[in-house]
């Protein structure tokens, strides 16, 4: 049992924090909400030069092949500045999927360019309502002129506007079982028939609705139509959900810092408000929620690196973080009072960021439903295995 950061984790934390705090100031993050690209090309290129884009890209594709624990450290830092832009879609979700499915031709095409910062990706797995389960996939793929024609809509695709490529799951119509009927395509954003309707979210123009109207793709754009594809896509999605937790933990830890500092300095009734038990107990509740979220995320990240994380472990992490970070927001706003409600203050940045993240990669309700299914299926043996030590 050891909770110290490794040398490598410390290095990532130090270099990322220095860069991110300078690059993503409050005013810049506020402004980025109106930028469909999410962040400037200069910021994006600098991150690539620091090696951040390739943190999970294998070395053969010019990445640095970092561990999941290292990714978590980096994402926590990004959460601390409520970083805008398609980093998560590109360097986390898309990379987890591409490396899991492992089509070498596609990987050769995309991964080196992701690592070098040349391209941005979006992932479109789901249906018109934002559901990300296998049965929700509603885009259809039908054979067409030696390739495929894709049709349908996906209601909520994070960072769709900035994407050069979209990784899109579609239904092949060959099997009754939704999990055996899926294919994954790589669609260039400028393909004819691929329509994009920008969505103005709580946190700006960071998502879009994709409308596919007879989008023709070639067989070279097919990443996989293997019948067991979902068994690769699903774990990649759940790992990405855990990664999303790291962003939330970073943002929540900044809320705690802001609120604690304010409680020490703000005077009312002739004393610092942090001396009042009502405020102290809000702060203690925030730290409890944060510590739970943080150590749950680190532990699950470690389990992922060990190859032992179950779907249940990952779902629990996202469910808990979504619940806890929302409470942290509430308590933080209560401590900050009126000033935290002002748009020019940093609190709204984190509010907007967390309220998006809590639903991203599935919210608490979706994950709780999955946990319940898994808990009810567990055998004595798997339970014992889980609690072996």
């Amino acid at each position: 049992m050891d909770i110290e950061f490794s040398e490598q984790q410390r290095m990532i934390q130090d270099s990322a924090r220095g860069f991110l705090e300078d690059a993503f100031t409050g005013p810049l993050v506020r402004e980025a909400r109106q930028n469909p690209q999410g962040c400037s090309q200069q910021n994006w290129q600098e991150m690539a030069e620091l090696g951040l884009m390739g943190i999970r890209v294998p070395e053969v594709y010019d990445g640095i092949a970092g561990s999941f624990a290292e990714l978590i450290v980096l994402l926590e830092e990004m959460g601390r500045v409520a970083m805008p832009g398609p980093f998560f879609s590109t360097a986390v979700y898309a990379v987890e999927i591409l490396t899991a499915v492992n089509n070498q031709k596609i990987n050769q095409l995309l991964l080196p360019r992701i690592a070098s910062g040349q391209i941005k990706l979006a992932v479109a797995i789901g249906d018109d309502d934002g559901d990300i389960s296998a049965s929700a996939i509603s885009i259809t793929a039908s054979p067409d002129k030696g390739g495929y024609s894709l049709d349908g809509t996906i209601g909520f695709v994070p960072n769709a506007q900035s994407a050069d490529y979209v990784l899109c799951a579609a239904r092949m119509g060959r099997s009754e079982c939704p999990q055996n009927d899926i294919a994954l395509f790589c669609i260039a954003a400028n393909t004819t028939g691929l329509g994009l309707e920008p969505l103005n979210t709580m946190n700006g123009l960071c998502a879009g609705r994709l409308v596919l109207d007879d989008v023709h793709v070639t067989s070279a754009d097919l990443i996989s139509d293997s019948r067991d594809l979902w068994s690769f896509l699903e774990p990649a999605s759940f790992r990405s959900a855990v990664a999303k937790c790291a962003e939330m933990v970073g943002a929540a830890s900044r809320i705690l810092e802001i609120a604690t500092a304010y409680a020490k300095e703000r005077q009312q009734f002739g004393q610092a408000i942090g001396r009042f038990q009502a405020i102290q107990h809000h702060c203690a509740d925030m730290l409890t929620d944060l510590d739970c979220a943080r150590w749950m995320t680190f532990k699950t990240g470690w389990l992922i690196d060990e190859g032992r994380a179950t779907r249940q472990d990952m779902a629990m992490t996202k469910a808990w973080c979504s619940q806890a970070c929302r409470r942290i927001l509430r308590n933080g706003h209560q401590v900050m009072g009126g000033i935290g409600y002002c748009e020019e203050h940093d609190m709204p940045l984190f509010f907007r960021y967390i309220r998006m993240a809590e639903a991203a990669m599935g919210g608490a309700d979706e994950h709780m439903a999955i946990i319940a299914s898994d808990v009810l299926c567990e055998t004595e043996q798997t339970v014992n295995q889980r609690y072996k030590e």
Partner: protein
Amino acid sequence: MDFNLATTDEDHEYRLQLGAFLDRELTPEICRQHSMDLGLGPEARAFALKLGATGWLGRGWPEEYGGSGGTVVDEYIMIQEFARREAVVSNIVARFMCGPVILRNGSEAMKREFLPRIARGEIEFSLGYTEPSAGSDLASMRMRAVDDGDSFVITGQKMFNTQSHFADYHWLAVRTDPEAPRHRGISLFVVDQRAPGITIRPIETLGGERTNEVFYDEVRVPKDRLVGVLNKGFYYMAEALGYERLILFQSIRLVPPFRRLVSYVKTTKRSGRLLSDDSNVRRHLAQMATEISVAQALEDRAFALLKNGKPLDHEASLFKLFSSSMRQRFADAALDIIGPLGRVEEGSKGAVLAGEFARMARASVIDTIGGGTSEILKSLVATRGMGLPR
């Protein structure tokens, strides 16, 4: 980063051997005697001695005081192995609360007198901190020890001293300097629980455990039974509290009741439908399972600090804060799932799962009160952990 408790081959081997021993020797009757605080019956006493004879109880302590080498990891493995069997380590107060304070602060003579006997499983202690007018405000305790030559003479009353009716020794905090500032006038003593002048009166509780009021009427305690330095008692108590808050709320203890509840919902129909198909029930189960895992991660963090020789401060308070309220939510959810029959008590016709959740609902009331109320702990977390002004 690493979240394995047992990492070396020796740790693994120890865990397996201890587990096999417990599977063989730890009977339901012994568990019941421990968990109900009804007192150590002959079976529990015999078991403690058997455990002591293995040498494992002394793991984590130096050999010169009856220990058998090992580290705090071995101590924690033992706590976990008992907890996963819904049991409590024999003589847990002596071994994990009082013993460590004696080891760090006691005189050489006191270490030699008590530690080997604790390691052999021979003796148990009872904590004597709370008084009728000193609960959360522990430093206001009034019970007095007066210096009288080669002994102290102690008079006064203690409250909620749960194990006093069967413990061998009283781990007693009393005021030794009424003139000093409150925290600096308290000392700790090891008192023979059967000494003349001590009266023990039972208090029945909502949870069904017995606790006690303990009265001292001019009880003479030899000076060599003073723990460490005179008037430093409050600091020793605080030192022991960190470990206490960590070891009494193992989240793994909730796994067996949870699995019994899962089996219940999979086999019980209401209005013609299995409970496991009810979305409210499923939501409750998911929340319960998640919180157990969250508590485990928090516990891992606290233990990792301990293992690395870092003092447990607000981290232990925070862990206790979360875990204690979690057990209450757990019992509430179970009763919500089971319905009216969940309230039927053990032994009655109709009791579900032997009334265990009715009992847990009653017994968990004290979790957020004893060992530091949630309100006291929140203030501790805020001031010590977050630097808010006192």
